[in-house]
């Protein structure tokens, strides 16, 4: 029983990463209609950022946690201005190809400088312990990650539903022309929204650095799972991405623990196919209605 609980908590921890990454993708897709394939590369850059902060600047995890996402957010805004926004009016495939190319470039730049082997990054000293309750044992850092992911998702939700900026973003997501007609400059918000989504990916990357091997390929395959999460939740749906992120985390953890290996391997994609057949707009998505 304790082990079942451990597995479930662990699924929630992994779900936290899915949720944060899916959330960034959903916000970007909602506002810009850009399927950002480079999201996994930004996640990797977040982890590398934490590693470089420590190695080059001597800055601990606690400094990297706010610093790296901000730097990556600015980088993301720069990219949006420089290339991505030029293609948003064309077929979405253009930006898909562009961000895919960006992924390859970013990965290869890091590979070229640091090789493909993992770089060492330790769990921060304050969180090296283990939480115990009876026979339930769990690394403190992972609990922290879960808590942090929940807080981050809640903060984004608050930002989007309770602030004026959020209102503009939501309105622009739903009906960009109508929002523009009401005198709101929608284009002004696309750049910061893209930067914000990238910063979320960077934040997830920093949080992953102490848990996983920091290497240039760490986001390359993960992004495919995250895309599946976004599709299951409903493209562009904020609540859908977060709920599905945590749900998929738990489901995969259970499958890995209690089913033959092949089940965990295909589970997410089978669910995605089923959801697409049953509810093409995703679990939390709404059917497109003509504007």
């Amino acid at each position, binding site marked *: 029983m304790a082990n079942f609980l451990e597995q479930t908590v662990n699924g929630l921890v992994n779900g936290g990463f899915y949720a944060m990454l899916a959330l960034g993708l959903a916000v970007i897709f909602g506002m810009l209609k850009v399927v950002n394939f480079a999201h996994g590369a930004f996640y990797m850059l977040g982890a590398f950022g934490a590693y470089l902060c420590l190695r080059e600047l001597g800055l601990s995890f606690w400094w990297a946690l706010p610093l790296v996402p901000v730097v990556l957010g600015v980088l993301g805004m720069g990219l949006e201005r420089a290339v991505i926004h030029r293609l948003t009016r064309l077929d979405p495939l253009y930006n898909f190809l562009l961000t895919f190319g960006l992924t390859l470039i970013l990965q290869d730049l890091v590979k070229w400088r640091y090789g493909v082997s993992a770089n060492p990054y330790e769990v921060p000293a304050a969180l090296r312990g283990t939480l115990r309750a009876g026979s339930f044992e769990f690394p403190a850092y992972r609990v922290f990650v879960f808590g942090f992911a929940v807080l981050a998702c809640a903060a984004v939700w608050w930002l989007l539903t309770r602030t004026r900026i959020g209102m503009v973003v939501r309105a622009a997501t739903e009906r960009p022309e109508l929002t523009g007609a009401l005198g709101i400059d929608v284009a002004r918000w696309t750049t910061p929204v893209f930067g914000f989504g990238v910063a979320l990916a960077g934040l997830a990357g920093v949080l992953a650095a102490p848990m996983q091997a920091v290497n240039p390929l760490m986001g390359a395959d993960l992004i495919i799972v995250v895309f599946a999460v976004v599709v299951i939740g409903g493209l562009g749906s904020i609540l859908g991405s977060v709920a599905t992120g945590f749900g998929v985390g738990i489901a995969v953890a259970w499958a890995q*623990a209690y089913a033959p290996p092949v089940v965990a391997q295909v589970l997410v994609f089978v669910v995605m196919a089923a959801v697409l057949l049953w509810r093409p707009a995703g679990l939390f998505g709404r059917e497109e209605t003509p504007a």
Partner: protein
Amino acid sequence: MRTIRIRKPLALAAAALVLAGCGGGGPRGGGGSKLTDGKIVLGVLNDQSGGYADLGGKNAVVAVQLAIDDFKAKYGAKAVTKDITVVTADHQNKPDVAKTDAQQMYDRQGVDAIFDVPTSSAALAVADVAKQDKRLYFNISAASDDLNGKSCNKFTFHYAYDTNMLANGTGAADTEGGARNWYLVYPNYAFGQDMTRGFTQAVSKAGGHVVATAGSPFPNPTEDYSSLLLKAASLNPKPDTLGVMQAGADLQNVVKQYNQFKLKDRGIKLAVGLMFITDIHSLGPDALAGTTFTDAWYWNFDQTNRSFANRFYAKTQTRPTFAHAANYSAALNYLEAVQAAGTDDAATVVGNLEGKKINDVFLRNGTVRAADHLVTHDAYLAQVKPSSQVAEPWDYEKIIKTIPADQAFNPPSGDCHL
């Protein structure tokens, strides 16, 4: 019409990407010597961008080039040809890509022998191509014993190491050292499955017991192994040893997460199936200190190895893994065989190699086994030093004992019919 115009450049871009993946092969030149085309082309086919790129990768090409240089220096004007080149391709650890690349190399680039090919599933695909094309393939980095078992063929040699060598060394040594109950985690593909089978046999033979096995996806998109690690404590009887069969970047992840979940403190020790020195370098010796494992070759074992490692270092600024040394050795021994046979005709070269006894920088008491083309040699039981005992960069291993060739490898399985 509009959509068609928009998509056309996309289609072109996609076509360009596909074409960029195919290396251009030149026409095969004629020549006057006994060689079929007047030249020898060696092909290094391996992972140059993924999780196995550091253990072999581009530096394996450097190792093969060193072998060519040494061959030319040794024979000079008497060499069977002066035109020896090396070509290379990245198979991305995908069997289908490996197969196409191998066909390209043999058919279009005039490659006489392919070397390396990590990832067992990819290696098995290349062995098939070698068999069909009747060209040579020296497997270095793939471990599956099927390569010299049920999937063996006349043109494929299994050099360096195999899953049984790893299991016989580590599985037996750790079980005799007190590991009674094992929990094996493995990547769910040919290599991992073979390793699990080999370890289960070796552990049982030494009087131990495998409590459970658990597979992880390969490749593993989430790079997370925590579900499998958490399972360890709930097994009955509780395992005292976690046998990790993952390799390269996957191994690095498992070890990092093993330390995070503090399984050592929960009475579960770490045993590693396959480890390259690049893995120790990446994780830092303290993450693995005290772990025993089986090594096929170690750069700092003796003066012979060290002087090769120094030449390698001068070109790459890194120390060679056993795979690098084995690529060098295989390439040099291939060229020697061509020199001795006076032809690059694959069947004749195979005849020259079969049964040959070799001692060189990589092979000690080496034999090219005629029965199944496994190249057996002495292996080593190694232990990772704590950082306090590391005397110079990359000096991570203490060799506990040499495992004689006949104990290190299994006898021919009987499944192989050349």
